[in-house]
């Protein structure tokens, strides 16, 4: 499966392939064989071409990984998102914290809250159906819902502001 790994500084195109117990990576940097074994909930011992790493996945932010004690912030994009971007849709876009806009056109199938509701970071906000898939959008920050600009059943264009959390 094709993926893109992004950090603030770098972007890597990779292809992951499960091979029995091992995971193979093909990347422009070369081919790598990974042996990943869980040693604790969310903590893995990883041997990548025999280099040894202890890697913990943060339970709160799963874009935050601890590699040999060092925090690494990264983003993992799968084929769907890569495809969307090829079509000119930016799947990742810096926005004001708490301002959620549609980065793909789609159908709002469900909104879980009303204005004034208090939501916690990670709580589901709404479902948007796009590319025949239903996507659950979670609250990026905790706060109170200040604005809901759409209704269930409404089709939205790319860029439409949907919810604002204050």
């Amino acid at each position, binding site marked *: 499966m094709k993926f893109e790994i992004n950090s603030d500084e770098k972007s890597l195109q990779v292809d992951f392939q499960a091979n029995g117990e091992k995971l193979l990576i093909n990347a422009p940097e070369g081919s790598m064989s990974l042996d990943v074994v869980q040693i604790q909930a969310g903590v893995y011992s990883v041997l990548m071409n025999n280099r040894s790493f202890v890697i913990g996945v943060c339970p709160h932010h799963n874009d935050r990984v601890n590699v040999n004690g060092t925090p690494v912030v990264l983003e993992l994009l799968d084929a769907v998102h890569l495809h969307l971007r090829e079509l000119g849709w930016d799947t990742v876009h810096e926005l004001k914290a708490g301002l959620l*806009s549609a980065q793909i056109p789609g159908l709002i199938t469900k909104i879980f809250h009303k204005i004034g509701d208090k939501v916690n970071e990670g709580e589901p906000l709404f479902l948007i159906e796009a590319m025949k898939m239903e996507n659950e959008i979670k609250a990026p920050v905790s706060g109170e819902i200040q604005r809901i600009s759409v209704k269930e059943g409404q089709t939205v264009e790319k860029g439409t502001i949907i919810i604002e959390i204050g």
Partner: protein
Amino acid sequence: MFKKILVANRGEIALRVMRTCREMGIEVVAVYSEADRTAPHVLFADEAYPIGASPSSESYLNFENVLRVARECQAEAIHPGYGFLSENTQFAQQVTHAGMVFIGPPAQAIKTMGDKTMARQSMLKTNVPVVPGTEEAIIDLGDALQIAKNIGFPVLIKAAGGGGGKGMRIVESAETFNESVGKAQRESQSAFGDGRVYIEKYLEEPHHIEFQILADTQGNIIHLNERECSIQRRYQKVIEESPSPFIHAELRAQMGLAAVETARSCNYVGAGTVEFLVDKHKQFYFLEMNTRLQVEHPVTEMVTGIDLVAEQIRIAFGRPLSIRQSEVKTSGHAIECRIYAEDPTQDFSPSTGEILMLQIPDGPGTRFDGAIRQGMKVTPYYDPMLGKLICWAGDREAALNRCERALREFYISGIETTIQFCRAVIKHPVFRKGPYDTHFYKQHKDELHQSLSTSNEEVLLVAGATLYHHKNRLNQSSKSSNQNKAQRSSWFTTQRGREGL
């Protein structure tokens, strides 16, 4: 010797004190708040008593409750650790009135040194140099401005009633003087309930260097050399070491004498710390005296081989000091890193949660004074310090190498910590070289934070692949437990922290 001591504290310092008590054959009593029922100090103690709700104002700072437990369990002495009630004159007095021993200096010494202007006045009667400035809190703004002009700008305005950088202002010129005094007074009032401020000379490239002293009830006072504490952020110490890479033997001897004189001037008894500022010309000035065990005391323990808590307890029991000044021998080099539950990438905001995996460094010359365990929850109620890593080796370079190794080996998952931030400092060439001053963090902030977030391609690749594996696992296990739910959403749509889809 005492049969039973109550430790009126929590966290690593409670554990630290209890360890020595147990080594001395003394029973130890813990007190705990609601949030701390299963905290390490409760598990370690021989006896444990609840003293109130989770906020420290309702438990660890509530000295009626502490005294009630002390009487109930028939403790003969109370060790206050640092923070909480350790520098509370009233508490020290009440402990004594209740017929128990307060393991600390006499209430009068706490009082004299606790008030910064009173301490300055007291020090001006000695031969110990004091940073030039006002002798009393500012009353008349006009007089104060004249004093500031005499000292020469820039000057510092500091709170009389507390520390930690609150109520502190650097004033560059006479124009902004009155405005800055007003701000400092208001900040000081809200932080300490005491709006008094005073003026001090602002020193160039200052080093924060402190001397450990020990004084017994027979009038013997010795010092155990210095600790260099110039690595600070927001006026909070981060890394301390001994010996200081800045001072030489002659200066050490002079400052040691000044520290002993300081302790003598306030009739000090027990373990205490005299803090000095040393400028780039190697002129030193008395800053303040901390009338309690210091967070960074293990640094001194590792270079001298002396157990400071054991000395405190022996002194409180009335014993003379076990060594003379001439018998104090130091060897090698020790360095301490404070490990906080804070996120250095989010401006050191406190991080709470469950410790999922914990690996504490160990091996040659490696000591960790902490109070954490795997599976434990870090709550938002108290100081975010998880513990202190102290490394010793034969010389400074070896000690830094050891410290870097130990920090690399230190693994905490589930919460964010300052482990990697400390590593960034230890690796920094200016720190490596030695004579850094208190501006180190401010001057190198960007480099330090950049080295925290930089990762090479190998690390990014292995991190990405492991994240893929992890999500795959979660996806598969959720698929098997709930077919519908898993199909409803693409599992890679979770976006980075602050972004929408």
